[in-house]
């Protein structure tokens, strides 16, 4: 389990770097967020302590890159992403028994929903932290939030099969009860 856990950590870092070089989707401006897909796969494939470490590292890396200090004050405290990812990771973890039985599509569906929720939560956070507070929600913003989720939904099967392959390479089976069913 530990080698695969290290692979997941390295994959999260690599996907965070790769995200910088993927342009936003034309017309809708939605971003391709790879790191959360890897992290959510980890949330399903790992037991609770492993999931907590993954969301901690993921949230910390994301906030370290994006938290802004405006006029000497933190716009949003570093660490809030950790709590958000942990909440979403816990929801994913709730579906772990199903995932262990071989239902891989759970990861894909939830990844799409959770990534859209992350982008929405980020938007709400900066909306209520920035002065003057004004809530704007139009089609453009909706597409950026929903678009990120749809992209995650489409990319997560690829991510799932790649990570599942790596897991088996290092002798870890994230879905052990799938064999029992066979």
């Amino acid at each position, binding site marked *: 389990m530990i080698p695969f856990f290290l692979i997941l950590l390295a994959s999260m*870092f690599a996907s*965070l*770097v*790769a*995200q*910088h*070089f*993927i*342009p*936003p989707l*034309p017309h809708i*401006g*939605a*971003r*391709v*967020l790879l790191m959360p897909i890897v992290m959510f796969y980890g949330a399903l494939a790992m037991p*609770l*302590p492993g999931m*907590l470490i993954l969301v*901690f590292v993921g949230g*910390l*890396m994301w*906030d*370290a*890159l*994006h*938290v*802004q*200090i*405006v006029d*000497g*004050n*933190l*716009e949003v*405290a*570093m*660490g*809030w992403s*950790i*709590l958000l990812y*942990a909440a979403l990771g816990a929801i994913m973890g709730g579906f772990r028994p199903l995932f262990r039985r071989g239902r891989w599509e759970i990861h894909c569906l939830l990844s799409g929903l959770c990534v859209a929720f992350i*982008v929405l939560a*980020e*938007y709400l956070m*900066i*909306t209520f932290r*920035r002065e003057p507070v004004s809530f*704007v929600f*139009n089609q*453009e*913003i909706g597409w*950026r*939030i929903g678009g*990120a989720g749809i992209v995650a939904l489409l990319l997560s099967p690829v991510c799932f099969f790649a990570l599942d392959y790596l897991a088996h390479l290092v002798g870890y089976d994230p879905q052990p009860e799938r064999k029992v069913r066979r």
Partner: protein
Amino acid sequence: MTRNAIAATAVAVFLVLTGFIIALSPHRTRQAQAAFLGMISPFLKGGSSVEKKYREYREGLRTLEQLESENKRLLVANKDLSATNQTLRGLETENNRLRNALKYRERAVFQLMPARVIARSPSTWYNQITIDRGKEEGLDEDMPVLTEEGLVGKTTVVSAHAAVVVLVADESCKVAANVEGTREQGIVKGERTSSNSVPVISLNYISKQAALESGQKIYTTGVGGVFPSGVLIGAVKDFKVRELEGYATVVPAVDLTTLEDVFVVVSNEK
């Protein structure tokens, strides 16, 4: 230790560590950000050079296809020569761009540090870029960043050899500005819907009677101490009136979507 005890311990440790991170002061947060930027920047630089090579390869390939359609009757040797010529033309364009940048650096009244954009923020709501210069090259936080065309933004997190620049299109980057040919002064900031791909900025808190016209240029005033005065920000696109004030949509002078090379103002004196 039972499974439940392990889970409870893991949750407790997680909450303590997260609480510790959330309680960090702005100064410590910036230090942590700089440390992480220092860690990730070699990978961003590597990725940037791979991306550049791929882009050049793709552009070269496209040109070759165009040449093929135009020169169906030419021999293979001629095709090779055309491709070589195209590569040289690309180098010439880059050379001219760098020459212009160098000329700007020489005639600028500020002391400038040239830097190359190595990455763009993958975030949906933050407009940031990462450049390949940092503390070791003399950069610090809140230094203005510009090109020969106008204002780009300011540095925020600075590590040893890289720095994050918040673009003028970001809502949190506020710049005191005035309008060419008028006494109107206001604050330029990005719109919340602004992104790295579609930058939207506006001039706020101007008088309702300003009646600005499309194309009027907007410059920094130097108020606030971060940005030097007289740097072009952009041009008025349209002017509108709110309940208490007037505001104008502004077209940035710099194409923020295709930035490759920028200058950091390391000192306001030459």
